[in-house]
């Protein structure tokens, strides 16, 4: 059975196949010329000692085996811990972000005055999120309550103005609880903009007639949400889940990234950093695979139920 099939495939380089290759050509070229060599280099670096050649420039690699991996996993005091911390916070953040964005998207999907403005406001964190504004977006809760404006504008950590708190009569504990809660909420909102938008678009694709029919059949709003809304947006929830994971893992302001780039650029431990990068990528890839699988499974169950 296999043989004739294979034969047919070989002969049938149709016009459409050619178009397919042509259309993807820029990306294939990019992958082959830039992405893959990067990856290969990274792997080579992680398995060898890099020796920068003086004089003519360039570098030489001396094979060292898995010693840098061993260093990252067994000897380094920080890498393991940071990795676990990142993973555990991701485990909490991702579902919270997804639920939050679905909630906001379904409210924004309703008809009310000013909803265009409301939608734009929720997308702002996606549109402007670099430099000083990113710092303010991340830290405005503590800026307003604890540290003052100065640090925000100069982007530095600098002298906190925490002492001022002691002059306020409210209990320290209460303030810090409120600040922590608000900062957490802020973080979630800040990373949910894109997801809200994607889910909103998905919700708008659900025909009204579906809800009307359900209403006639006597479904409550709650039932409609679970039996119509959720199953219709499962594909987009998967996209959003993957997007969320990727944006968490590729953020450059996480402690683990700062640690790796310090090793790479400040301490010049190129091979060590490369090994950590490879390990990190493997963990990230694994997580994204599992994450997508879990969401897909949950979606299938939801559809069945």
């Amino acid at each position, binding site marked *: 059975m296999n043989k004739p099939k294979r034969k047919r495939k070989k002969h049938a380089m149709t016009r*459409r196949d050619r*178009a*397919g*290759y042509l*259309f*993807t050509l*820029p*990306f*294939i070229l*990019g*992958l082959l*010329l*830039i*992405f893959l*060599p*990067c990856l290969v*280099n990274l792997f080579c670096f992680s398995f060898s000692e890099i020796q920068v050649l003086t004089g003519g420039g360039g570098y030489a690699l001396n094979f060292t085996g898995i010693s840098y991996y061993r260093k990252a996993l067994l000897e380094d005091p920080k890498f393991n811990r940071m990795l676990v911390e990142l993973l555990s916070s991701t485990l909490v953040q991702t579902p919270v972000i997804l639920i939050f964005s679905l*909630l906001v998207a379904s409210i924004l999907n309703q*008809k*009310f005055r000013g909803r265009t403005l*409301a939608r*734009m*406001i*929720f*997308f*702002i*964190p996606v*549109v*402007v999120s*670099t*430099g*000083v*504004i990113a710092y303010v977006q991340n830290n405005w809760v503590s800026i307003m309550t604890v540290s*003052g*404006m*100065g640090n925000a*504008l*100069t982007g530095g950590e600098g002298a906190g*103005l925490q002492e*001022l708190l002691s002059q306020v009569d409210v209990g320290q504990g209460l303030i810090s609880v409120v600040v922590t809660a608000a900062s957490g*909420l*802020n973080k979630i909102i800040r990373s949910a*903009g894109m997801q809200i938008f*994607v889910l909103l678009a998905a919700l*708008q*694709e659900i*025909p009204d007639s579906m*809800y009307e029919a359900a209403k006639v059949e006597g479904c409550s*709003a709650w039932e*409609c949400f679970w039996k119509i809304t959720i199953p219709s947006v499962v*594909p*987009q929830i998967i*996209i959003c889940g993957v997007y969320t994971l990727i944006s968490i893992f*590729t953020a450059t302001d996480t402690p683990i*990234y700062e640690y790796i*780039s310090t090793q*790479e650029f400040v301490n010049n431990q*190129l091979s060590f950093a490369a090994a950590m990068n490879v390990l*990190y990528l493997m963990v990230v*890839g694994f997580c994204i695979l599992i994450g997508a699988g879990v969401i897909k499974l949950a979606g299938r169950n939801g559809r069945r139920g």
Partner: protein
Amino acid sequence: MKRLNRSKGGTVLLFLFILVMGFFCAFPMILIIGNSLKGVTELWKFPPTVFPKNPTLKNYRDMFQAMAGTLVPFSRYLMNTVVITVVGTLGNVIFGSMAAYALCKLRFPGRNRIFSLIVKALMFNATVTAIPSYIIMSNLGMVDSLWAIILPALGSTLSLYLIKQFMEQSIPDSLLEAARLDGASEWGVFWRIVMPNVKPAWCTAILLSVQALWNSSPNVLIYSEEKKTMSYVMGQISASGLSRAGVSAAVTVLMMSVPILVFIFSQNQVLKTMAASGMKE
């Protein structure tokens, strides 16, 4: 979720929720705009004020003054950033949509493998590949040219991913077959049928790409002063310590105004297209 039977109290609660969340999103921007209009004394007040009591344009004047005194004429930095943003965005969105169309609708052998490779490329961020990419750029002879920033941006896979997912949802195969039967070439199908129908997707891709490229700062790949970007020189203007705090806010406002303008424009487009889309299977 449209107009279902819900109690008044529930409605009020939901909108209160939206109001609070919206406040969280909008507040940092308001704060920065307010700051850019504050004098030095007010800037350092604690607790901070949101709206300036004595608004002044001094920060903006200082900023323009600093812009006039840069090493290379300021227009040069601006031009570099504009070139990077426009070329990078156009290339990224067009190549991305082309590849998305092929991977989504043209069933050629090997496409799954290509797609999985592309998705894997999503996971990388610039730090991971910084050193290898420098070596590759150097091999390609592109160190210290704008292409060192543009070229990787062209291959940014996020837009491809977004557009492909959108195509899968919104373009029925039957529509493409109909167009082919009417004698459209693959390019014609792509450009005249598919692209108009996935406008929301590429509007979003344009927005994300502009946002990233407009703020791109030269890394190790560019060292000539005349090839550096606006975000770099703006960083220099605002990075002169505490006394420049107000100027820094002004710089931020100026830099974020462009992505916001693009957003306001494309947002309108996106909503219009979404409302008008009659493409349902």
